[in-house]
């Protein structure tokens, strides 16, 4: 049943209230146990030997030296993998350990376990690997055109997909085009990869505590590589310090389990920051050509596009990222005709996969630059051209799919335009030089600075696509007025642990909710990604709570001789709307346990056909951003002053939590716009540290002004859309548009570098 009514009561702890995180105080005080803090009696340390070459043939691996190091208990290579030798989320093309060829800098070759991290380090140093170094494939266009020999038996193309819709002959009368590029962004979560594996006696199974985004998918892949039945591998969520997509793929999971099973002792592994940059997937670098055909009044007639996503050495989710990118090429605008071609290819660069926005960040950067060009070409204000084309519920996408989601694009734009601009001039009323571009470096004076304003609007799909049934499961028990909620939903910082409690309190009328351990002892929750857990796991907890409530109402009805259909929850009471009977929930659930499990499935989706047609997505959310930047054109330095946003959220279940997602998403979007990039030269990584991979500091973070559009989504179990990704999708193009506005140059690449501003 869909309940889309906005909350009338905002009783503390219930839906609509800005309830605080249950783990918030522990995190602030430093007592929260992250997965890197896990340990056990008799624990060994694990460490990984990695390839120094982007592409090389392995001629010989000699591990005998490692065994001579005092304290070493295990040394393992590909020969020690008992099950399937490769893994992967979609295609299983990535070796647990490379044995014949290495395909990226950082690819694992061996792992050791020892009684001390220093012994691990010495053991890794003592392993001899002889390579025949090969010329790496680093230009994705050479994978597209087939001019480079296959670097993997499965070839150099992960997927090619076209979208062909409508009249292919439409040209002009207004034509704008451009080629856009995005560099490789890292998720840069603060809690590094870490796990603790504890083997069962006799080595028949293993329990893995790990920071991940999807326990059950990890388990499936780990069990296959270990050659064990799924149920022999039990996963428990370790404390997660951020994810943003980088924990969707396996990193150290199989290695840690193998070492524990080999030594019959608990093993902990933890990556360094340097290793983390090499050891997880990143946002795809992408090159996009777009050409828009429009009428003189600015209405879109046809969009042409070509996308090339550099997927790096292994498949990960590249094929799904590609589909997300190309199916969002039109942006949140009406467009009947489209000609799109997209490629996701293999290179010897770092592997790429999921990161917040998942292919749509790339598309949005291009289509929003195009909309600004179109506005200039037809002589319209950038907002007016977007309003004229704004998508509405019932419009068709270029895939032929009808947008059934609430699509308040016009409203987002209008409300954004009415948001207050920064009240202070360049440098602020207090003339604090820190506020100027260059910040603490004190490079600029007020007279050196120009202000610019830019706009961007986005559409983002929610949940998984192309026929995937990414359901979620929850189990709820109610006894003596206490609800116990069990799910396998990975809490990665997004706040589902807060929301789950709010749902249970609201539906069941309890104040006391206990969250059970997050592990694989309940059905899958799907991944904490694709902005899906509020909808999917929220739906599962809501569904299980409603089943429990039904059972409780039946019991009350039986005991008091009333009709269960007349019963409702008010506060902490069961109330009969007919007789006025009131029974405390604690009394209604006294001496009995109601125990229900519920799976929430979203409606089915379809694969795309060869013309890119099909109902491949589940639902959509929209956002609009306005950025105000101060630029020092002579030095090419930028200070993002303010980002205002209006977001389509369906319903605010926890306004504070939404604010956190929006501010954090904008920080990540600002980072991509002006500083965040992993730099690779011929496959070698140049900045795998926080010294040189720059994230926005407090001084780089703009003021954020937020407007929420609450039009409950009929498809969504709680009326609420996911809010995690949209803030990242359109904040980047808004910031770049603002820089363009300030300096009058065509900036076609992110991150925008000082050299692009000065010499571009």
């Amino acid at each position: 049943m869909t309940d889309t009514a906005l909350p009338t009561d905002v009783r503390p702890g219930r839906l609509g209230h800005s309830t605080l995180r249950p783990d918030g105080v522990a995190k602030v005080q430093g007592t929260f146990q992250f997965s890197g803090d896990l340990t056990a009696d008799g624990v060994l340390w694990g460490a990984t030997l990695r390839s120094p070459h982007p592409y090389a043939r392995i001629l010989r691996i000699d591990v005998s030296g490692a065994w001579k190091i005092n304290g070493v208990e295990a040394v393992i290579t590909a020969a020690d993998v008992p099950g399937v030798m490769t893994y992967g989320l979609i295609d299983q093309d990535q070796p647990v350990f490379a044995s014949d060829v290495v395909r990226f800098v950082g690819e694992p070759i061996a792992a050791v376990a020892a009684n001390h991290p220093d012994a691990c380090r010495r053991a890794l140093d003592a392993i001899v690997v002889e390579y025949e170094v090969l010329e790496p494939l680093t230009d994705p266009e050479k994978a597209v055109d087939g001019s480079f020999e296959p670097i993997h038996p499965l070839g150099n193309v992960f997927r090619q997909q076209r979208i062909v819709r409508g009249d292919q002959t439409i040209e002009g009368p207004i034509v704008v085009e451009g080629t856009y590029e995005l560099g490789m962004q890292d998720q840069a979560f603060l809690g590094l990869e870490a796990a603790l594996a504890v083997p069962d006696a006799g080595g028949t199974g293993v329990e893995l505590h790990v920071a991940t985004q999807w326990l059950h998918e990890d388990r499936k892949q780990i069990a296959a590589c270990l050659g064990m039945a799924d149920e022999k591998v039990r996963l428990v969520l370790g404390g997660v310090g951020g994810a943003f997509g980088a924990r969707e793929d396996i990193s150290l999971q199989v290695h840690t389990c193998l070492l524990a099973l080999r030594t019959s002792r608990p093993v902990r592994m933890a990556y360094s920051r340097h290793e983390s940059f090499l050891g997880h997937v990143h946002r795809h670098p992408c090159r996009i050509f777009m050409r828009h055909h429009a009428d003189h009044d600015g209405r879109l007639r046809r969009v042409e596009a070509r996308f090339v996503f550099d997927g790096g050495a292994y498949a990960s989710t590249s094929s799904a990222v590609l589909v997300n990118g190309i199916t969002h090429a039109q942006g949140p605008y009406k467009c009947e005709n489209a000609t799109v071609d997209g490629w996701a290819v293999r290179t010897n660069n770092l592997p790429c996969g999921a990161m917040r926005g998942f292919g749509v960040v790339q598309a949005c950067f291009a289509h929003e630059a195009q909309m600004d060009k179109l506005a200039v070409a037809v002589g319209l204000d950038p907002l007016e051209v977007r309003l004229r084309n704004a998508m509405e519920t019932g419009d068709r996408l270029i895939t032929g799919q009808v947008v059934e989601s609430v699509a308040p694009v016009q409203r987002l734009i209008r409300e954004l335009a009415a948001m207050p601009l920064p009240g202070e001039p360049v440098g602020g009323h207090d003339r604090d030089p820190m506020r100027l571009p260059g910040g603490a470096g004190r490079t600029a004076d007020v007279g050196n600075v120009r202000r610019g304003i830019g706009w961007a609007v986005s559409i983002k799909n929610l949940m998984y696509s192309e026929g995937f049934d990414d359901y979620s499961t929850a189990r709820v028990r109610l006894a003596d007025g206490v609800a116990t909620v069990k799910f396998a939903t990975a809490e990665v910082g997004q706040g589902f642990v807060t929301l789950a409690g709010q749902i249970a309190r609201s539906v069941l009328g309890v104040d006391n909710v206990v969250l059970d351990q997050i592990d694989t002892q309940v059905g899958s929750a799907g991944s904490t990604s694709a902005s899906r857990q509020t909808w999917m796991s929220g739906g599962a907890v809501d569904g299980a709570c409603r089943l429990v409530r039904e059972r409780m109402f039946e019991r009350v009805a039986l005991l008091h001789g009333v009709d269960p259909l007349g019963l409702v929850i008010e506060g902490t009471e069961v109330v009969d709307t007919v007789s006025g009977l009131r029974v405390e929930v604690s009394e209604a659930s006294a001496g009995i346990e109601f125990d229900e499990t519920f799976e929430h499935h979203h409606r089915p989706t379809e694969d795309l056909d060869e013309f890119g047609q099909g109902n491949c997505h589940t639902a959509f959310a929209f956002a609009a951003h306005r950025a105000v930047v101060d630029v020092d054109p002579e030095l090419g330095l930028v200070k993002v002053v303010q980002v205002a946003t209006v977001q389509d959220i369906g319903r605010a279940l926890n306004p504070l939590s939404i604010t956190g997602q929006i501010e954090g998403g904008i920080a990540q979007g600002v980072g991509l716009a002006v500083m965040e990039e992993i730099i690779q030269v011929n496959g070698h990584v140049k900045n795998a540290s926080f010294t040189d991979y720059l994230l926005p500091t407090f001084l780089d973070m703009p003021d954020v002004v937020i407007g929420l559009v609450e039009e409950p989504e009929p498809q969504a179990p709680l009326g609420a859309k996911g809010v995690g990704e949209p803030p990242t999708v359109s904040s980047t193009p808004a910031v770049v548009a603002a820089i363009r506005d300030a300096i009058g140059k065509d900036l076609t690449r992110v991150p925008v570098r000082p050299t692009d501003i000065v010499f571009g």
Partner: protein
Amino acid sequence: MSVLVPTSLADALQALAEHPDATVLAGGTDLMVELNGGHRRATSVVVVNRVPELCTWRHDPITQTLRLGAGVTYGQIERDPIASLVPGLAEAARTVGSPQIRHAATIGGNVGTCSPAGDGLPVLSALNAEVELVSAEGIRSVPFASFMVGPKRTLREPGELITAITVPVVDGWQGYAKVGVRNAMVIATASASLVADARRGTVAIALGSVGPTILRCPEAEAYAMQHANFSERSLAADVVSHCCELVRLASRPIDDHRSTAAYRRHAVGVLAGRLLRRAFPND
């Protein structure tokens, strides 16, 4: 690895005499990063942050000098009373890392590491700072400009300890500006310091991150001095432009993953122009 923690200057010097190859640790903000990252190995470490003699500073109004013990932190330097004596050095101090780093990082450590990107170094160069070195054999004082001989290479001999940095308290304007891709907590892509000594009628310009050492710009300095009016704090616009060009020519930048030589050369010219205008606001 042996770690020695002397608690007096005499003990520190003796420890260094006994372990002439020892690595000196002050704030540890450079060294621990290198050790933890495996980029450097140390057989013995002498920790000097518990040596009280190194943590003092003294302003001598007679000689108009400020003697900063090597253990004085950037956190101290960015605040008064030190900041108003050497405002240019205080500006540089504020750009060093985060508050936590500045709380630990010392001026002696910055001079000891002697990276071309060291934030305090262009100011020390422009101020003609003297580096005091002490060993069991004795004490010597070396001008900063000759102390730094290359990237992270100095005249410090084994067994010697940097004990103090002495700078003049200048009557005039001094400042520092640093370009990085982030607004705080960032390594300098290019930096510059300018000291205009009104009493002596001198202008000094020093550049960071655009050469193997901190670079002075003698031609630009001479040209600026020749045309500057110190009492009116004025300098003609065309003089400023010409000085910028001379500064660009004095730089010797390289391409690396942080930026390009062309940008760095351009940037130090811009910085020099802006610093000159701050020192001489009038046309």
